């Protein structure tokens, strides 16, 4: 890891997020390319997103995470029709949940899977190595069928801040995301950062529950940010033969709303300031 520049200490918050959800970009996401979504954007067809995980029961109320994700994505990608389907995923990745994931993906054939992963496995204290292998396999499987996938690592809670097993679990999700070069939403790091912010917001059940509420509310925004910025990732050279990269790029940047953070070309994008162990985080190309 390169020595952190002094500026990193006062790294700017990502101003495209709601005030209470603002986190520096380096704590928020690791970017990687999203080929299938780009292709869908290029063909100007609706983007099917399958949101999976503990908060993805897909509730009808407007307050729920999947609905927020859909709204946030539609806001970030105007003129693009986004259809979010949400499913809870019972069971542990280390013991069979990967199979259920495959059935769901086969049933819905989405362009993008947003997978909030690790909670059930952490609660069952499964063997971390087995978890990592099973997760890696599932991610590989999704990718092998030309479907994009974004991972969201588990929730931060102070009662587990010093739990070696739990932090190892979070690290394992990060490792898999890096190895498979898929975008990752650092839910853990983002909430950890938010937990240090002073806030006047109270919660009837105490600080940890306030943070949890806040984390849930912000997760959709954080995931959306990671997805839209990942869409700005340039195609790798080896793909040049297949499509005209410049054309593809201009197409997709038309679609992606350039918001506050990305439009300031003079300011380095938060993604560039580097995350320990981040994936390919090249600067987004500007139109």
């Amino acid at each position: 890891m390169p020595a952190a520049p002094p500026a990193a200490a006062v790294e700017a918050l990502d101003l495209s997020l709601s005030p209470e959800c603002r986190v520096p970009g380096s704590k928020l996401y690791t970017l990687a390319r999203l080929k299938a979504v780009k292709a869908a954007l290029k063909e100007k067809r609706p983007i099917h997103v399958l949101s999976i995980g503990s908060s993805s029961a897909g509730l009808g109320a407007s307050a729920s995470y999947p609905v927020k994700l859909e709204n946030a994505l539609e806001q970030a990608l105007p003129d693009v029709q986004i259809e979010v389907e949400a499913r809870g995923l019972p069971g542990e990745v280390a013991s069979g949940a990967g199979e259920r994931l495959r059935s769901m993906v086969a049933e819905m054939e989405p362009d993008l899977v947003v997978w909030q992963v690790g909670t059930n496995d952490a609660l069952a204290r499964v063997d971390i190595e087995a978890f990592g292998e099973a997760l890696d396999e599932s991610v590989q499987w999704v990718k092998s069928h030309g479907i994009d996938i974004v991972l969201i690592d588990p929730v931060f809670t102070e009662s587990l801040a010093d739990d070696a097993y739990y932090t190892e679990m979070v690290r394992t999700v990060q490792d898999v995301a890096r190895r498979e070069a898929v975008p990752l939403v650092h839910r853990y790091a983002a909430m950890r950062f938010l937990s240090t912010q002073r806030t006047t917001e109270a919660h009837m059940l105490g600080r940890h529950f306030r943070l949890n509420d806040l984390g849930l509310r912000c997760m959709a925004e954080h995931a959306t940010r990671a997805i839209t910025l990942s869409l700005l990732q340039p195609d790798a050279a080896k793909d040049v033969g297949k499509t005209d990269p410049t054309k593809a790029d201009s197409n997709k940047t038309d679609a992606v709303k350039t918001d506050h953070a990305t439009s300031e070309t003079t300011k380095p994008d938060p993604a560039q300031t580097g995350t320990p162990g981040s994936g390919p985080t090249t600067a987004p190309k500007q139109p």
Partner: protein
Amino acid sequence: MREPNAIDFWRGFALITIFINHIPGNVFERYTFSQYGISDAAELFVFLAGWSIGLATRGRDGQPEPRLITVLRLLARTVEVYRAQITIMALALAMIAGCALYLDNPLILEWHNAGGFFADPIQTMVGVVLLTHQLGFFNILPLYVVLIAIAPAVVLIGRVSRLLLLVLSLSLYGASLVFELNFPAWPGEGDWFFDPLCWQLLLVLGFLSNEATRGSERLQRLWPRLMPLGVVIVAVGVVLAVLELRPDPMLAPEPRLVFTFDKTYLSPARLIHFCGMVLAFQGVYALIAPHVGRLARFLSGLGRNSLAVFSMGSLLSLAGQFVRFQTGGGIFVDISVVGSGLIALGFTAWFVEWRSRRPRPTRKAPDTASPADSPSSSA
């Protein structure tokens, strides 16, 4: 009280397997048969439910009881199972919430589909009583409610024609597989974890196996001869499970569910594997029962009181998960969690039978009872 018998024995066996499998990550999990085949204890439980419906709707002399009695009996059972599901859901949600508060750990609120209830209680409360909101591991009883509710139709059609019953059941199963028909989840998106439209076939098969075998000497001779076939199927299942060989659902041809190993829709591979298990193990109880008297009595006791034992088992496995989580697990924790759970299940079965044996206090007629008496009489 029934003597120990094969049906209660295997039912007790299924209950213990479900209890252990519902504490994921524990060391005993890898010693359950679910790890060595395509189907698991859920199939066994439903099949035996069908089998015992056949027994329960006949008198001691083996004659079918009057139709109205059958309908009322199964209706009463449906109410009982529904009540059990609502009760354990309420207790489970309270355990999850209480545990999150006590350990000051909101992570626990995200436990297997519980998050929806706490994030969105208004709709989800309705979903809980409609059985359309199910927690992970608490999804078998909703299936059971539906199956017992349709059981009167199964029994009555079966009395008219077994073939007709089988054809109807197979058609419903086939249509549900091909068109992916299932009960919807609500307010969450998606469907039921166990699709009643598919799983009814197993109940019907259990019912028909019992009905057809009781009067037919030919069938009684045929089953043991099919044992080698069952052994082959079980062996193939072991190989597939251990090597983790299964079809890729994205590559499976349409209709996809016919070819994948899907639990929700009881895909044919699971069904065939389960039938193989029945054929392979049909004679085992008679073989081992004389040598394992205590075990046979213990498991049969659990099986006789399956609803109470299942309900307690669900709650105990949830508690076991929390204990494992908070202590970090390990072999000693697992031995104590599973060991104390098994003792508690045994006690549950004993307690239910003790309660039903206990002579009831004679009640006064309502008009002569003083108001002070009424609370005690409600017990």
